[in-house]
């Protein structure tokens, strides 16, 4: 075996150009595999994180009757005295914040916006003192400031602001139905613009102070939801069970739900996408495999005469088979090592800097909750798989043509062109 390894190594060194070209083909294929896998996993991971950070929070408490109708945003089924529940949650170590969600007609005035207009909008009433402890809007402010409690102030998503031509200082009017059904019209001044990484939020966000809205809409201090931030490491299912036991063990009036339930539609979509993602990776895998196979086949076929000479000199077929496979494995090892190194380097850039897809994301909705930059994630499994795949596949593809060559008689091998 030592002789075979030594022979394979000598051959690798003898055909340097071929070794390098084949190894580069393997390296590029594996690097692409590691890169694409990191990008797709990163998109999914970041999407889920942006959902929790800006849209659903980790878990939410709502009125039991609100759960089914939450898309209609009814105000008459709400949580009484939300701050006592929040203090209970804080004692248990959870950060929580109340919100009121409601639908409104957004009226734009020509004095500020150049022309009059109106559109349907979803409004999020938040407690300015607590909301940023659960959601991560604090770092997203790009203009102005956040709204103050008790004021007629509104903070708007940057894409929404671009769409309607809004700037801090402009006034808008929100016309909606209060708790019970009465009409209310509220003049609000835009005081801040946030550039939220979650495109769904950035396209629609209108954030107003909860106490102002509570007065306007006769909510009497109630909230339609209490959002909870859980530590990243905590199992949301178990935490939700614990919270449910804490607030209402029977679940008759209040219910705690995890972000997975709140983002049920997205998760179903993500699972469907995962099938597509697997297909993309499979295609990358096939491209890498075809590249490796092709170069190895070429390498074996051009050396059939050499193989015939080795047989004529008395080397047995089994040793020749092993010599070629080890040589192929050597090329695979070189290529895999280079591919993994290149893949790691590219992934390093991807995880630190990311790639900005902002121009594409702005005008289309792919379902992912990513606004512009996609950053990669480290997947040790993928790197190890890529390494072994490159080496073993090289050996495997060397096996078949060598075996076929060994079935030829020696004169045919020597005459082979």
């Amino acid at each position, binding site marked *: 075996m030592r002789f075979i390894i030594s022979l394979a190594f000598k051959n690798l060194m003898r055909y340097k150009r071929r070794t390098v070209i084949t190894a580069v083909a393997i390296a590029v294929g594996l690097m692409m595999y590691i890169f694409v896998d990191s990008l797709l996993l990163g998109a999914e991971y970041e999407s889920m994180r942006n959902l929790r950070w800006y849209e659903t929070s980790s878990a939410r408490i709502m009125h039991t009757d609100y759960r089914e109708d939450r898309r*209609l*945003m*009814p*105000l008459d089924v709400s949580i009484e005295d939300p701050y006592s529940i929040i203090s209970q949650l804080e004692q248990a170590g959870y950060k929580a914040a109340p919100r009121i969600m*409601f*639908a*409104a*007609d957004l*009226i734009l005035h*020509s004095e500020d916006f150049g022309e*009059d207009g*109106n559109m349907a909008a979803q409004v999020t009433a938040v407690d300015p003192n607590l909301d940023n402890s659960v959601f991560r809007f604090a770092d997203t402010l790009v203009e102005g400031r956040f709204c103050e409690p008790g004021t007629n102030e509104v903070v708007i998503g940057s894409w929404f602001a671009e769409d309607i031509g809004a700037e801090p200082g402009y006034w808008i*009017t929100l*016309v*909606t*139905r*209060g*708790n*019970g*059904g*009465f*009409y*209310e*019209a509220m003049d609000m001044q835009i005081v801040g613009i946030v550039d939220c990484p979650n495109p769904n939020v950035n396209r629609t966000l209108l954030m107003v102070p909860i106490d102002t809205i509570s007065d306007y809409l*006769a909510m009497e201090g109630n909230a339609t939801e209490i959002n909870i931030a859980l530590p990243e490491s905590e199992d949301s299912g178990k935490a939700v069970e614990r919270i449910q036991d804490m607030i209402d063990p029977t679940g008759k009036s209040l219910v705690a739900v995890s972000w997975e339930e709140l983002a049920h539609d997205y998760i179903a979509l993500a699972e469907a996408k995962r099938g597509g993602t697997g297909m993309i990776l499979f295609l990358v895998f096939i491209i890498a495999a075809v590249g490796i196979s092709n170069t190895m086949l070429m390498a074996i076929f051009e050396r059939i005469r050499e193989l015939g000479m080795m047989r004529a000199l008395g080397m047995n077929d089994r040793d020749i088979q092993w010599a070629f496979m080890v040589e192929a494995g050597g090329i695979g090892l070189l290529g895999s090592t280079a591919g993994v190194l290149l893949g790691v380097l590219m992934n390093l850039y991807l995880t630190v800097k990311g790639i900005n897809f902002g121009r594409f994301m702005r005008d289309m909705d792919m379902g992912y909750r990513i606004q512009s930059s996609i950053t990669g994630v480290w997947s040790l499994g993928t790197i190890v798989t890529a390494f072994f795949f490159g080496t073993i596949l090289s050996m495997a593809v060397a096996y078949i043509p060598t075996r076929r060559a060994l079935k030829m008689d020696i004169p045919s091998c020597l005459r082979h062109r």
Partner: protein
Amino acid sequence: MKRRIIMSILFALITIASLSAITAEEIVRKMDETETFATSYSEGAIITTDRFGVKTSTFKAWSRGAYDSLIEFTSVAERGQKVLRTSGELYLFYPDAQELIRLQGAALRQSMLGSDISYEDMTGEKDTLAQYDVKLLRQERVGERNCHVLQFDAKTRTVAYPMQVVWVDTETYMVWKGEFSTKTGRLLKEMLVLETMVVDGRTLPKVTRIADKMKRDSATEMRLDRLEIDVNLDPAIFSLQNLTW
């Protein structure tokens, strides 16, 4: 001079007496009576004018008492669309999608066929005194007609317009004009009757203009071409089953 003063005082007294002869509640009761029929059938059109142009949608409508009404659109673009209001419930039916939608909350405010009339306005309940406290403000002329000017302040939070000011004809008790506002007095909608018709001894609006004051440059006219009152109606008309047929 003395005689002139006495005459003036007498005239003032007579005016005050005639004003106080009828209370605000009585005016509202008569107003509701004029607008409410045991049953009715009507045909008409909604003409919407906005910056994109003029759009006409025709309809047939059936009503029963103060709470039940059904509207079916007959114009080509909306043919077969139905709006059913029963006590506290409002449903839409779209024939193309064979879909029944229950409206609630903010959805009730949605504009009907792009007009300035919301689904709720079109099918609104007519039991004013149960919903509002009423105050007689003054008398005022609208066009050629003398009107009582009444202010309605909502008793509950379940009515759409917390404050209304209406101009009710002193003789026919038809509402000539209405201003619909939020609790703080922010004007949301304005209604003005442009033409009237007499049906079964009652003077009723024939052409009404409604303007959403939150949207500039838009107005909607509702025209009734035919109105029959106290007609025989199948009670099943106001059922959900009928809506999907």
